[in-house]
């Protein structure tokens, strides 16, 4: 921000405050003018320790790399074999995270389903229930069981390939959902049993259980209803991850999904997005530790999400012990969210391409985070699906390239030993050595 300011006013000597930068000044002015807190989407914008702060150690002398064009590096993953008669068998360890119909248009949901299916992976419903577009075009569909229970019915439960019990979301652990009235069309309202046009509040906790002991009983009920056929995931927002993962496993989860602070959202309070939860990088080793201590690492699979942007993030997450990653915001960008071709229209809305986050308004020029029929029609689900599939393939190929460089014949052979950290903070969070040392802050001695 400071650099931007100086470049905008070269040589004038003006200096922006690091404490009261322009975004902060604007936030104060907006709050003073409106008397309400800012609601927006798209997840945390602050700089957080992330996978960019880690590097992979490619092979040289002490390790033997694989030939990129002739030697295999497999990518398949099985999710939920612990209890389910029919676990999910995915071709690639990257899935589409839960995003609701309502928050997203039907075209966007269809495109996500098409793309995921083409790439051999799963997509996930959201707070709005299951749409025919998404089920019809998703080979593997994970049905979220959310506190709101909007649209929840046993037919859809049985039509799903897996069930994800959502306890929290990385962008807002402990917070409920918000879908403002401008996006509550007749169809969205019908699915959610709400009047058209009113602000929809989703509860922050499930209505019929009060803690981890109840969760175990709830999971058994879901298994009973679906005759133990489907894997049951438990999704938590990254906070007290070590304990949450242990409790989820005790409750019977087949798969644990940990969503870090960089995870997106359709709409919630800015103060929540930026100030609650912990970074994905910090949560992942905690989750792995919990699984390892319970002796179920790789038996209960771990999916990590929250700001996953490409193959490098995926490879690093897998190296730290995840079985798969999930993408949300990156998938929306692949679909066309914040694309420069809509820049003029973003500017009409007071934003710009690359900055648009007012998903709650439902006026998304890209036709993705909207229920406006004319805007939504801009998104061709077939073309969108192709873009999603392309992106998933590129992510996978990138991860394979990195894994081969580390001498790995399967993405799951990546391990913490393949990683070093660039900063002390990331070394401490990821529990890998600071680059050029054998020092893991908080875990090993300080000697080089």
């Amino acid at each position, binding site marked *: 921000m400071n650099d931007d300011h100086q470049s905008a006013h070269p040589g004038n000597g003006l200096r922006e405050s690091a404490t009261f930068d322009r975004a902060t000044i604007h936030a104060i002015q907006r709050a003073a003018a409106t008397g309400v807190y800012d609601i927006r989407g798209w997840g945390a914008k602050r700089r957080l320790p992330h996978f960019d702060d880690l590097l992979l150690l490619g092979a040289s002398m002490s390790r033997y790399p694989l030939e990129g064009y002739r030697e295999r590096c497999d990518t398949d993953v099985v999710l939920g074999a612990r209890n389910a008669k029919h676990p999910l068998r995915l071709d690639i360890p990257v899935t589409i995270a839960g995003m609701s119909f309502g928050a997203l248009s039907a075209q966007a949901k269809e495109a996500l389903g098409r793309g995921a299916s083409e790439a051999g992976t799963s997509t996930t419903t959201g707070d709005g229930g299951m749409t025919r577009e998404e089920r019809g075009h998703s080979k593997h569909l994970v049905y979220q069981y959310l506190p709101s229970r909007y649209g929840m019915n*046993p*037919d859809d439960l049985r039509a799903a390939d897996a069930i994800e019990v959502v306890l929290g979301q990385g962008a807002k652990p402990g917070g409920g959902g918000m879908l403002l009235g401008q996006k509550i069309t007749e169809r969205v309202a019908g699915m959610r*049993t709400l009047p058209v046009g*009113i*602000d929809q509040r989703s509860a922050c906790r499930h209505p019929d259980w009060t803690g981890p002991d109840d969760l175990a009983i709830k999971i*058994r*009920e879901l298994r009973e*209803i679906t005759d133990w056929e489907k894997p049951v995931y438990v999704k938590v927002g990254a906070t007290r991850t070590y304990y949450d993962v242990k409790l989820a496993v005790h409750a019977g989860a087949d798969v644990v999904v940990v969503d870090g602070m960089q995870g997106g959202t359709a709409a919630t309070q800015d103060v929540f997005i930026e100030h609650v939860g912990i970074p994905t990088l910090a949560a992942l080793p905690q989750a792995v530790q919990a699984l390892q201590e319970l002796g179920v690492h790789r038996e209960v699979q771990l999916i990590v999400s929250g700001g996953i942007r490409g193959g490098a993030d995926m490879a690093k997450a897998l190296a730290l012990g995840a079985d798969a990653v999930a993408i949300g915001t990156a998938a929306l960008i692949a679909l066309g969210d914040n694309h420069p071709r809509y820049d003029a229209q973003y500017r009409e809305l007071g934003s710009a391409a690359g900055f648009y986050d007012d998903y709650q308004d439902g006026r998304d020029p890209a036709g993705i985070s909207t229920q406006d029929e004319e805007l939504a029609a801009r998104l061709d689900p077939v073309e969108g699906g192709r873009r999603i599939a392309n992106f998933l393939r590129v992510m996978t190929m990138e991860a394979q390239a990195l894994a081969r460089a580390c001498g790995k014949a399967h993405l799951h052979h990546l391990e913490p030993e393949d990683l070093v950290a660039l900063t002390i903070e990331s070394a401490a969070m990821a529990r890998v050595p600071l680059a050029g040392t054998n020092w893991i802050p908080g875990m090993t001695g300080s000697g080089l």
Partner: protein
Amino acid sequence: MEALTGAVPTEVHDLAAASVRDLNQALHTPGVAKRAAHWRVLNPRGAHSVACGLNEELTVAVEGHVGYYCAGMNQLAAVTVHGNAGVGVAENMMSGSVRVRGNASQSAGATAHGGLLVIEGDAAARCGISMKGVDIVVGGSVGHMSAFMGQAGRLVVCGDAGDALGDSLYEARIYVRGRVKSLGADCVEKPVRDEHLAELTGLLAAAGVDADPASFRRYGSARRLYHFQADNAY
């Protein structure tokens, strides 16, 4: 399990001898209603998830107390619990009916979309929480936060209601004959007009409850929370 002879075949499942899993698997078998439309479940002894996920026109009589989530997500079936029910009885019911002869624990009928839930005794806290179209008739009293965030359907309470009745209510309608300890945010008393008396008469009749509809008061949403405002936060 044994099939009893008689004009109407009844299947008996003894949970002292076989598991809840066995029971539910049998009840989920496609076409089960043609083979045996009437079921008796013996010795439930507080078991969880008894007769959940039913999807055909069955009658199921559970002879004893049940634990959590009995008749959860019921569709089409008529389930009667001849005892008390634990947390979340008939949660997310879609259609059909569930009757509890005794008392029910908290969150009875939570998020249920349709059908009729009758609790002849009392129901604990959060009865009808996030109800989405179900009709619930409670012969006794309900605990605090009942019908919290109720979206649609009707809750009839023949006894008293605890604190914060109908908090953050959407379009669910509430009738209470006894005392209401307090109303939740945005829940207000509303006049009982002829159409409400008719509605209440029908619900009481369907539930088999003998009570004078004219003795009930009606509560609903003031709709002040329908759009986000700073002064709605507290």
